[in-house]
């Protein structure tokens, strides 16, 4: 990021200002196009029906948080995200390690893994709804199928890319099979898992929201579905805004965790502060 700003010859403050102007301009344009100020009342009504009103959206969001109506829904969505992420990661790590270390198993499973990965798995949502009901479980199941493959492929790659020299070295130092797994394959695989953390957390979130959208009784996806049913575009957009904010928040947390756990990774141009 600093490099890009240097190239553009913009200071940090300038960059922030322009970014604010960009989003402010967008909102101003949205506002002008949905209020009868520059355009006729009839066409303003028309656009507001399709695009909602910025102040209306803001009012819904504020109302949600002030009245506390959003919290149970948000809690459910985040809980589903967390469960899907945790279960998907553990499964992906386990299966990834197993297949990467067992040539027979991986040869046997390879075509099916490829097929399952190629399949648009969102389509499984209705089946999961039948199997697990309309509660939390069906959303978690959908999220797991999305997260699992990301983690799985990264772990598989991580194990395959362990340096043969490091491996030989550790064997010469007297590591047993179990110690190889614990001290070489697992750290190497987890580093790959963490590098895919952003994508997998995002996918868990997608699984939760899409699952809710396709049939549920609670959650932010459910709120959006309800609003859409009565053409309440303001609420739909408010739901999207809240989801986006929380997706950014999750991403921020992931970045923090990543920086903590992957200190051993070389960063570009690292110098000591004196």
């Amino acid at each position, binding site marked *: 990021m600093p490099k890009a700003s240097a190239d553009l010859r913009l200071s940090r403050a300038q960059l922030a200002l322009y970014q604010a102007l960009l989003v402010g301009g967008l909102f101003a344009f949205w506002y002008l196009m949905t209020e009868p100020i520059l355009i006729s009342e009839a066409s303003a009504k028309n656009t507001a029906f399709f695009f909602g009103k910025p102040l209306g959206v803001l009012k819904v969001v504020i109302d949600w948080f002030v009245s506390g109506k959003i919290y149970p829904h948000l809690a459910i969505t985040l809980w589903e995200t967390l469960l899907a992420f945790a279960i998907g990661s553990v499964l992906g790590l386990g299966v990834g390690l197993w297949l990467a270390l067992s040539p027979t198993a991986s040869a046997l499973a390879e075509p099916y893994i490829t097929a399952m990965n190629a399949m648009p798995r969102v389509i499984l949502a209705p089946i999961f709804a039948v199997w697990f009901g309309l509660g939390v479980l069906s959303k978690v199941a959908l999220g797991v199928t999305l997260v699992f493959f990301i983690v799985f492929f990264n772990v598989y790659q991580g194990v395959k890319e362990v340096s043969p020299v490091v491996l030989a070295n550790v064997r010469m130092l*007297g590591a047993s099979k179990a110690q190889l797994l614990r*001290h070489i394959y697992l750290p190497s695989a987890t580093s790959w898992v963490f590098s895919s953390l952003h994508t997998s957390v995002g996918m868990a979130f997608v699984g939760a929201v899409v699952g809710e959208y396709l049939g549920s009784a609670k959650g932010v996806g459910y709120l959006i579905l309800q609003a859409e049913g009565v053409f309440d575009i303001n609420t739909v957009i408010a739901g999207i805004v809240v989801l986006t904010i929380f997706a950014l928040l999750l991403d921020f947390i992931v970045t923090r965790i990543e920086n903590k756990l992957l200190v051993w990774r070389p960063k570009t141009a690292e110098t000591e502060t004196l």
Partner: protein
Amino acid sequence: MSIAAAAVTSQAAPALALDRVTCAFADRSGAGRYIAVRDATLAVGAGEFVSVVGPTGCGKSTLLNVAAGLLAPSSGEVRVDGARLAGINARAGYMFQAEALMPWRSALANVTAGLEFHGVPRAESTARAHDWLRRVGLTGFEDRYPHQLSGGMRKRVALAQTLILDPEILLMDEPFSALDIQTRQLMENELLDLWSADRKSVLFITHDLDEAIALSDRVIVLSAGPETHPLGEFTIDLPRPRDVAEIRVSPRFVELHEAIWRVLKSEVLKGYAQGKR
């Protein structure tokens, strides 16, 4: 008399012996076989520093991997103190040419790794690792990760990592080839210091004849690959302790260098011609 002689020979069995070792690999095309090493026989006596020189790509590393037990020979056998080697050579420490440290472990944790694998209590292994990092001149760098260390420092960590287990045999595969010449001479002198403190049996592989002569008791010249085999052996009768930079200008060094180079030169040219093809 003969019984006594046999007893003496078995007692004086070399620390490490490769007996008519042949290594064949499947060809790149998969059709034929590539014979990297054929009928290689060499031995390293207890406390002896033996260097193996040969043109690049002649299968030097293959020989070392066989000695380490990382690679099983297609035929022939490896004997450690007279006993046939099966599996990893537990009495040997191996210093690799390429980076072999665990990037996710700090310098200290890399050095303690071997002790950890052998179930040494943490307090003891940490104390010993601190001592070893001090001996290789890395006090104050315990918490650095490999990528935060220079190439020379990483080699020192690798040296400490290998030597902390106190192996009887030290296998070294061009360990200093990636270093600049000054750092390299420093490391060579440090290695000689550490070696003279408790004479381990060393099998040192290099393509640098100067390095081989400066460090060794004996230099073995390998033929160009494929079907590499030892061509000749030279005893290096230079006095110890040596300084690797100073000894290069001594007349005896120059003499030995000429003698060995006469054998090595044609092999290097052969290897070069094969490389060009």
